[in-house]
């Protein structure tokens, strides 16, 4: 396992009226984050909130290209990103113990915080297709280039780690500085991760390490 300190590239926020950041996603232009009763789109160049959708937003956030997915209480809402309307909801696999959310390869990936699990879920029905075990409490979840990454948070210590999607084995770990937390994780598809900062009310961008040889 490779372990290193996370390199923080930039930091957005705190934002007016935002107490906590619960989930993060990226639509190619804007970074979206969940702040309890709102989804907010931040322009990563200016750091300003460009747009907000009034919708219950208590945990993870994901984007499939057209829709935003947002966990609220014990369900996952599918939201039209253009109009902000909630189209459908499915039950969340953790029954309310759910944390992070990602969209990849036609499935939703849902972190279950205290159970230290990541579920692969059918986005139409909510059926759990398979479950990956982690070693620490799971916060944000994201996929990039076939790599599964997730954020952890236990006793106010956070890291971002890449795990083997088959075995749950930790392959790589980026430690966050003491006192910062990760409560949401999304890759921009390139060399950046966006991380939610919990009750610090901010979003950080950290660098995804480059590897000489890709497996």
């Amino acid at each position: 396992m490779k372990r290193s300190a996370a390199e923080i590239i930039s930091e957005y926020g705190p934002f007016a009226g935002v107490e906590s950041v619960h989930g993060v996603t990226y639509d190619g232009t804007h970074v979206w984050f969940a702040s309890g009763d709102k989804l907010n789109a931040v322009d990563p160049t200016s750091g300003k909130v460009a747009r907000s959708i009034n919708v219950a937003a208590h945990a993870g956030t994901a984007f499939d290209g057209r829709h935003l997915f947002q966990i609220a209480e014990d369900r996952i809402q599918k939201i039209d990103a253009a109009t902000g309307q909630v189209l459908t909801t499915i039950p969340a696999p953790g029954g309310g113990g759910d944390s992070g959310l990602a969209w990849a390869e036609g499935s939703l990936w849902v972190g279950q915080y205290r159970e230290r699990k990541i579920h692969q879920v059918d986005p139409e029905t909510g059926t759990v297709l398979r479950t990956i075990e982690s070693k620490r409490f799971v916060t944000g979840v994201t996929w990039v280039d076939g790599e599964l990454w997730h954020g952890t948070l236990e006793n106010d210590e956070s890291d971002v780690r890449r795990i083997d999607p088959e075995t749950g084995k930790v392959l790589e770990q980026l430690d966050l500085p003491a006192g910062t937390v990760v409560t949401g994780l999304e890759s921009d598809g390139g060399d950046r991760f966006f991380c939610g900062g919990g009750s610090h009310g901010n979003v950080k961008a950290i660098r995804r390490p480059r590897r000489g040889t890709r497996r």
Partner: protein
Amino acid sequence: MESLITAAARALDAGDPLGALNRVALRNDAPSLALRGIAMAQLGDLARAKTLLRSAARAFGPKEAVARARCVVAEAEIALVSRDLNWPPKTLAAARATLERHGDLVNAAHAGHIEARRLLLVGRLDEAELTLAGLGTAPLPPASQVVRELVVAGIAIRRLRTKDARTALDRAAKAARLAGIPALSAEVDSASLILDTPTARLIARGSEHPLLLGEVEKLATSAALVVDTFHHSVRRQGVVVSLGTRPVLFALARILAQAWPADVSRHALIAGAFRARHADESHRARLRVEIGRLRTQLKTLADVSATKQGFVLAPRKTRDVLVLARPVEEKHAALLAFLSDGEPWSSSALALALGMSPRTVQRALDELAKSNKVQSFGHGRARRWMTPPVPGFPTGLLLPGPLLKT
């Protein structure tokens, strides 16, 4: 972190404990237990709240020291509000240290406020002030500011510094409006009542009238000779003669002061100070001795001169004699003063606060209960005593808001 926990914590934050319970009522994981505990406390079921918070503290794993410490803080606040003064302060101090170490300064401050409130309640004002001063200057959310200012005002009131109390209460009111929690505003209002309700009686030249706290404070700088029944002392400005351990001398001083500038007959003095119905020669001899002792004690402030019928007080360097008395004089005034905060007290907590033996407190309570001045509920160790609600300080349950945030 967890979706439903976030939703329930938001409901609690917005002052909706039922909304919070709706979301976690059937869950038994650690954060749910903690949330249920706080919701139950806000709904007034303190016994259930305590059990739930204990289970929550146990259920949080060894790596979740912060979450555990927050549960301890909440339990300490419940103990304070239920006047369980035997709850170990060391446990609270340890929890506060853990929170500080992990950078949770808001909840650490909350823990400090609870400690200061406890010290204020048992009258250890210097220590309460030190505790507040030790909390640092990190910016606090409005709800915590309210608590802090209430403690500051409470200390100022006990110290008779009305102006400081009023400024603190103004700041508290402002913060309560910012917090938007109606219960907090109500708490500040009821605390402010203390400054606008007579807290004492002034007896001078045979007449009496009620005094506000601010007027009591002014007496400290007035040139008059004050016989103070709150502190069992006789004073003029900075010169104080304490008669706390000499009840007979104090009784004599008070009777003489109340009659001033007239004199008081030997008979009246004997009846008032010795509680003797018929005065015989031995009483007269004792009176002479006690007046001699009083004269020695008061030397710097006043003389006690003999008259044809009895004795008269002759104040030095002033032409005014005042008696400061409680609004209503009761045999068990000190005990009633504690109970008048409107909270349920156990007799053992009262004994601890008053520095009296539990048995003496119990006897006094039984006596007061017979005349309906206090009431009790519960049985055995769970028995609690109360007076009908009078504005108290500080009473409400304000449990840490950000208990479960990350």
